[in-house]
């Protein structure tokens, strides 16, 4: 397997607790979303990639190098941890400059790069304020600044949009896309699926320390075709429409959640969408709207994680 990050049966324990349980995934170039609920193992994977935890078994490589250790290749990686993890007594500029100096930049080069990175995250005006007075959103932005300031090839962002206001989210998302467009790679973790959906179609889904699905979002959607797909229809006569639809082989159930609405579960959404217009025309039915109730990543994730239980 090739990729910016390759995990092969990676297991990490915290005593009796399994952080990762035979996690295998291949993170390709560009932006990849690491999606999973809290406690799924996202931060554990990031700490392993940041060289701060050591795998108990399995193989984990980052940019072709073993993930464990603090070797010189760390310069090629930017890491934005999820916890606040800031030196509160420093100013924003000092914070970024200090971390750049740990990469081996001269004082002058570090200061110049720090200024550029702070400007990119729109914190130039707050650069001389101490980090302890920064809001959560500003903290996320300054953390992002420190992880891109040394121009790394790969950036690991652990819940980067957590706590950021909508405007900040939008600007950070734009920054991430720009960073990727410049030929860099990002792995972005989140437990809020729509955040990742806005950034990329490439996702790795994680639950209970295992990769439950990976690849193009649309391919992952194909994986769920064997499970009932929920479709809501708005119609003035739900019972009539429901009687016809209930006769189809691939329809698992028909429900009437509220007046004027029909909920259908089907094992074959493609067949359903193909046959529905013909039914409406031939039987003279009125259907005002058709909406897939699980068109978003949350539903995909629920299907996949439930399938593993």
């Amino acid at each position: 397997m090739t990729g910016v990050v390759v995990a092969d049966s990676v297991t990490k324990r915290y005593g009796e607790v399994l952080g990762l349980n035979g996690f295998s995934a291949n993170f390709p170039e560009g932006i990849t979303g690491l999606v999973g609920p809290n406690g799924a193992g996202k931060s554990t994977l990031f700490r392993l990639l940041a060289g701060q935890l050591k795998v108990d078994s399995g193989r984990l490589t980052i940019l072709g190098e073993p993930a464990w250790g603090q070797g010189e290749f760390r310069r090629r990686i930017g890491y934005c941890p999820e916890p606040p993890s800031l030196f509160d007594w420093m100013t924003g500029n000092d914070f970024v400059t200090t971390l750049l100096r740990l990469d081996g930049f001269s004082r002058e080069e570090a200061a110049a790069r720090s200024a550029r990175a702070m400007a990119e995250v729109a914190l130039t005006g707050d650069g001389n304020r101490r980090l302890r007075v920064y809001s959560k959103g500003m903290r996320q932005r300054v953390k992002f600044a420190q992880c891109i300031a040394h121009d790394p090839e790969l950036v690991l962002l652990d819940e980067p949009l957590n706590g950021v206001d909508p405007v900040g989210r939008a600007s950070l998302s734009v920054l991430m896309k720009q960073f990727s467009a410049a030929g860099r790679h990002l792995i972005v973790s989140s437990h809020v699926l729509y955040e990742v959906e806005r950034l990329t179609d490439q996702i790795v889904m994680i639950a209970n320390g295992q990769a439950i699905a990976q690849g193009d979002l649309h391919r992952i959607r194909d994986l769920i075709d064997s499970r009932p797909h929920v479709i809501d229809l708005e119609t003035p006569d739900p019972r009539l429409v429901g009687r016809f639809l209930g006769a189809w082989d691939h329809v698992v159930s028909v429900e009437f959640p509220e007046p004027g609405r029909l909920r259908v579960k089907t094992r074959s959404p493609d067949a359903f969408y193909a046959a529905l217009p013909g039914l409406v025309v031939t039987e003279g039915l009125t259907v005002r709207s058709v909406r897939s109730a699980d068109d978003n990543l949350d539903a995909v994730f629920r299907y996949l994680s439930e399938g593993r239980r």
Partner: protein
Amino acid sequence: MSISAPRYVRAPVAHLGRTFRDLAVLQREFLRRSTAGPLAVIALAFLSVVITVTFTVDFAALTGTSVMGAFESPYRSVFWTLLMLIVTAMVGSGSLADDIGSRSITLYLSRPIHLTDYLFAKAAATGSWILIAAAGPGCVAAGLTAALGMVSASTALTAVGAYLAVGLVTAVYFTGISLAFSSLTRRSLYAGVAIFGSVLSVAASSEVVSGIVGNTNVLYADPNTCLNSIAQASFGLPAPYPIDPATSLVVMVLVGILLGMLAWWRLSRIEVVGE
């Protein structure tokens, strides 16, 4: 003549070496501790030692007693050890605990810097503060007495050398203690209390046990007695010493290094972070 489009190539950035990166950590840690509390305690150390030594040296010069004994006088007081403990607790208790507690250590170690380098830089920063507090006041006092004509320049220089020697031993010992306790907790307050409690209890109990069993070897566990012996020998004062200065020197340096290694072991065990 031909015209071609210019090619722009990003100039490769020259990365500085490991020593420079260690210095960056050292500098940050050193500056971080330059807050009002430690500075006030160190100022108190300077003030009290300079005044005491100056008057003691003046008195010794007038009465014809040992001037070097006067220079050595601060080490005879338990107040000296207490002062060093306060400085150690203030500048060293948070050196690792603060980074572990806030998990900002993850940011340090996500860079191309080794755990050993990180720990060495932290030790150097803490040790520098302790050295300033331990040797600085004596050196200033020696300079002042020479400037006031109380002692010759060569005597003052000898005293400075002795202060630096004892200061270095003090710095190694107390730095090791602060690193060890700071690595064991996420709260600098706990580390500070542990530094105080352990050193004072070991010092007091070794005095008591030594008296009960009648064996002075137990006093090698007491940093106050050890420092006193080393100081007497460093300032060229004649025997008898409370305990053997050479053995005291070995014990203090060894304890400092071993405790530093304990801190390294501890940090490597916790793999930097944990929930």
